[in-house]
């Protein structure tokens, strides 16, 4: 598949720390904690990132690294639950964290759209696909049902669903997986939101359909010049569509930067592990290289580097600093890393693997 980078629409490169306050989306020190019977679960711990219109930010990490929780916090979907969301997320001059639910509801769907992982469970089984899309249009637009229907049919056509007039009146269970995700995208985009959050949009789809969906999202993003946050664990997807990447581990950003820097100038052992664990065409199944160990318990995060327990290079930093002290996110030329190892050390590790 081909992908045209969307750099032509960039006004300014994304920056991850020390961002200018007038960024389109500016997230500062975002944390999410869930009180449970066993204690406080720290799902997201101090995330900082910024995003401009027309750009795509990929958030990558294992299951349980806090990717989805981050997106739900931005969408305000955690409001009204027991989750404790702190920090700041400035979007169009409003702080999404402190915004009351009623005001947040005005933004949802209209200014921020969201695409979910499994389109079958994310679509309501009892309403027609068209009805659900038109409903999204009607919430934020003063329009008649007829106008909403026309808008929904138009949108179904734009996302590549054949004979949209007929498909409008069909139910989600009549659609194939790829078609459902197209419908989901149509629903998220019908009000042309400036920010689109896609939470593993291709994970539930088979590989040939994945590429089509990614192409479609890129196309529509270019048309509307919206900002896209793509949450995924698939580094292949990231390489295809993202401008910038943020690697999450244990609810923290461990590495961030432009996509090329992340792939070709990797600065964190965890990112290296992720890249290494990707199977290639000329490796057999027995040659898979997983990262040993398990992600840390979010109930009781280690005092030192969150990744130190699984990091095979921790002793290189010396003085067991990795186990004792949590590294800060250091940024050089837009490339941030949260690691005690020095740049030359990491370069040696990367080239010797």
């Amino acid at each position, binding site marked *: 598949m081909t992908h045209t980078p969307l750099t032509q629409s960039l006004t300014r490169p994304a920056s991850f720390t020390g961002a200018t306050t007038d960024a389109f989306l500016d997230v500062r020190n975002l944390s999410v904690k869930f009180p449970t019977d066993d204690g406080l679960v720290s799902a997201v711990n101090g995330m900082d990132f910024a995003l401009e219109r027309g750009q795509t930010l990929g958030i990558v990490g294992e299951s349980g690294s806090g990717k989805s929780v981050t997106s739900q916090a931005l969408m305000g979907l955690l409001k009204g639950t027991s989750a404790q969301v702190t920090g700041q997320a400035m979007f169009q001059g409003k702080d999404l964290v402190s915004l009351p639910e009623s005001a947040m509801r005005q933004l949802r769907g209209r200014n921020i759209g969201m695409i979910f992982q499994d389109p079958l469970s*994310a679509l309501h089984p009892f309403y027609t696909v068209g009805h659900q899309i038109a409903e999204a249009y009607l919430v934020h637009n003063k329009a008649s049902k007829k106008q909403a229907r026309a808008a929904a049919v138009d949108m179904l056509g734009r996302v590549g669903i054949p004979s949209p007039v007929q498909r409008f009146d069909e139910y989600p*269970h009549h659609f194939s997986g790829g078609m459902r995700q197209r419908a989901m995208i149509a629903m998220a985009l019908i009000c042309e939101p400036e920010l689109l959050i896609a939470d593993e949009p291709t994970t539930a789809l088979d590989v040939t359909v994945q590429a089509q969906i990614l192409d479609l999202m890129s196309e529509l993003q270019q048309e509307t010049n919206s900002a896209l946050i793509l949450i995924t664990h698939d580094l292949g997807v990231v390489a295809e569509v993202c401008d910038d990447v943020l690697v999450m581990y244990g609810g923290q950003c461990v590495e961030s930067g432009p996509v090329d820097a992340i792939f070709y100038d990797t600065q964190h052992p965890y990112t290296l592990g992720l890249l290494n664990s990707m199977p290639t065409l000329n490796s057999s199944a027995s040659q898979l290289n997983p990262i040993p160990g398990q992600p840390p318990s979010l109930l009781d995060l280690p005092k030192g580097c969150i990744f130190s327990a699984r990091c095979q290079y921790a002793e290189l930093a010396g003085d067991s600093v990795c186990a004792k002290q949590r590294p800060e996110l250091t940024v050089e030329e837009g490339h941030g890393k949260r690691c005690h190892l020095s740049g030359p050390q990491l370069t040696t590790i990367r080239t010797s693997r």
Partner: protein
Amino acid sequence: MVLLLAAVSFITFMLFQLGPSDPAAAACGQECTPERVAEARVALGMDQPFFVQYIDYMRGLFSSRMIGAPGAQTLCEWPCLGKSFQTNENVADIIGRSLPYTFSMAIGALVLWTITGVGLGLLAALRKGSPVDKFIVGAASVGVSLPIPVTGLFLLLLFVNQLHLLPFTTNEINSPFGPQGPGAWVANYLLPWIALAVLFSASYIRVTRTNMIDTFGEDFIRTARAKGLAPRTVTFKHGVRAGITPVVTMLGMDIGLLLGGAVLTEQIFSVPGLGFTAVHAAISGDLPVTMAITMLAAFFVIVANVLVDLAYAAIDPRVRLQ
């Protein structure tokens, strides 16, 4: 459905044949000579072989037929369900007389327990974990363990005997459209309604609560919120419609059962409905009456099940035939 009814009627008929009571002896009364018992048996048609009796009986469901001893036959008009062994009254008339009482009692109780059960269950689900939720769940546990005789007698004692707020149930009112008007109808049946509602709404609360909590955790609810829909739309349009199907199933079952006669409730409140009539008929070995009420109850259960299926199709498009 027709097959099911035929099977139910056949089994009921057979059970009575095997039963220990002799309707002929009962019908001819005390101080009865064996000759008169034999006459009574012929008059009731019980001298005939089992299958002949059964087929005769079933014929009456489709047309009028002659009934009684040869030479002394009377016409039993369609729908002929036989004549009571006790009073020689047409069974269809007995049922026609009892049915309005049962309907009166069922309909109010049904409305009352559906509203309280689903309403409180939904409230508990929306406030999951809160004191409101805990109170409702606790109340439901108490309600489900209160049998009708306890609540019924307690309500009668409190509202009729002590507070004199409500009249004791009377046989004169069996419809809101009667001469006494709907107010009197409600007052007359309010206590049985409450007694039934306390018992039934408890299980509706629990089923509604569990299902709604599950439904509110579904992905499509998150999608609905992500669209920016109002909380009310999310709860009712997207939530309740998806989570209500088990309640519909329960409701269908309960409607069927209740129309077959709420035996205990009718006894306690002296409502001469189907359940009341059935108990008396069964005790006195009045085969045609018991038989008819059993079949009617089965019919109601079957109809209710068909209605549930139709309701399912209305709620869930995946169930609809293409």
